[in-house]
């Protein structure tokens, strides 16, 4: 029985749909819907989380992330310039920094800043400084490589034109190269911001007071008082309020810059 290639492809597609329907039907029949509903979608628990989850937890997540991102961006720019420096030791230091902090878990950095530094140096950071330092230190290691690639993607002719007009090396970098580099790396930098938003959850390992709760900590606290997965699910959805628009923005920007790809190694 010879079957044409097209016919065969069609049957195969039917089979895939069939499998999907079958699995869905099995789940519908055998799943304990009541149990799933109370575990994941306990409306009472979810409602109790409002408005604190927005006015405190989401707000704090955003604050911690923005602090960390800003510091990380500044430090990342310095590291990128060091990596491009003609002075060897600057390059080595930047490389060591980047490789180290990309290689160790971010959680370890949070522990170091929140517990290690106070013990070792008798120096206690407040929650904002801790978030800024820990997130920034980790973020800088990733952003440095992105920024470096962006700077190198600026055409050499732009530098030559600027120097021909009498601009110094520093002036050329500040006025011409860095602004153009940032345009090029805006999409990957937006992705970096998404990653940092999620990494901000690591701060939940620190003892936070209620007003300092961010989404993950708030979710856990609510969970400890309500034996349901709902708080975690709601906290997760709250992260999406930040990350989905950022992801959309990143794709838009990427399209606008004509898909000019900066390879970040």
């Amino acid at each position, binding site marked *: 029985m010879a079957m044409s290639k097209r016919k065969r492809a069609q049957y195969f597609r039917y089979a895939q749909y069939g499998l999907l329907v079958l699995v869905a039907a099995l789940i519908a029949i055998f799943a304990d819907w009541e149990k799933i509903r109370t575990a994941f979608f306990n409306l009472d628990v979810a409602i109790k989380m409002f408005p604190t989850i927005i006015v405190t937890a989401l707000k704090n997540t955003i604050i911690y992330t923005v602090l960390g991102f800003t510091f990380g961006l500044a430090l990342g720019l310095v590291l990128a310039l060091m990596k491009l420096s003609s002075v060897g030791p600057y390059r080595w230091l930047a490389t060591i920094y980047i490789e180290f902090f990309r290689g160790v878990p971010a959680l370890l950095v949070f522990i170091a800043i929140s517990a290690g530094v106070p013990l070792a140096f008798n120096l206690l950071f407040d929650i904002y400084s801790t978030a800024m330092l820990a997130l920034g230190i980790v973020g800088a290691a990733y952003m440095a490589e992105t920024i470096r690639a962006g700077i190198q993607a600026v*055409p050499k002719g732009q530098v030559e034109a600027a120097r021909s*007009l009498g601009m110094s090396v520093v002036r050329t970098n500040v006025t011409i190269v860095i602004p*153009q580099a940032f345009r090029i790396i805006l999409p990957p930098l937006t992705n970096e911001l998404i990653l940092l938003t999620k990494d901000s959850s690591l701060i939940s390992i620190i003892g936070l007071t209620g007003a300092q709760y961010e989404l993950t900590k708030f979710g856990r606290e609510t969970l400890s008082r309500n034996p349901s997965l709902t708080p975690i699910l709601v906290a997760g959805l709250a992260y999406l309020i930040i990350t989905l628009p950022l992801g959309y923005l990143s794709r838009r920007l990427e399209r606008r810059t004509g898909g000019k790809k900066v390879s970040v190694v």
Partner: protein
Amino acid sequence: MSDICVEISGLKKSFGPLDVLKGIDLTVQRGEVVCIIGPSGSGKSTLLRCVNLLEEPTGGKIVVNGTELTDPDVDIDAARTKIGMVFQSFNLFSHLTVVNNLTVAQRKVLKRNEKSAQEIALRNLERVGLSEKVNAMPAQLSGGQQQRVAIARALSMDPEVMLFDEPTSALDPELVGDVLGVMRQLAQEGMTMLVVTHEMQFAREVADKVLFMDGGYVVEEGPAEEVIGNPQQERTKTFLSRVLDPTHHGPGDPE
């Protein structure tokens, strides 16, 4: 003040083991237009880029507007403000509007205030016939327009001399005329110009002096009519016959 604008003597430049310029002497009088012609790889761009020290010479001496650029203690940034440079690939600042392309260096380097920088920018845009493009982004302009903006940008610094490195080579043929027209105008206004070009007609009409370069040397030098119209050196003849009548010569022609 002397009438000499650019004075180059014994200029040498090598890239590692490659000797590109092997001893160039050239004097450009104020108001003079000098065209540099020669085959690809003969060192024309390198020579031009040495005149504003985009390339560091390996030997010899360059004096521009009375300042010795080859002096290790020279303030090169200050010297460059008096030397306009126009590139084959335009190199407009792609993140700035046309007017900001023209004002950025005036303000940051010459420290002119916003208002006078803008006035000077608008005047120079008018000179190149692009007043209506003040607020355009470079990417919205044709190649010919971009190159004219690049010329206006250089002019906005009030340079004493302008360097052009094949300013029309990257342009579609129908856009070449506009750019050459602006350059012709500049020459008539008495601008000192050093132009690397393959436009023999332009060189003939505008140049006071033509330099033929080959293999890192100036092979022949003189008034346009003589160097282009009646070349004495064999290498110049071969080059010109190829450029002026390319269809009759294959790439394998004997030198």
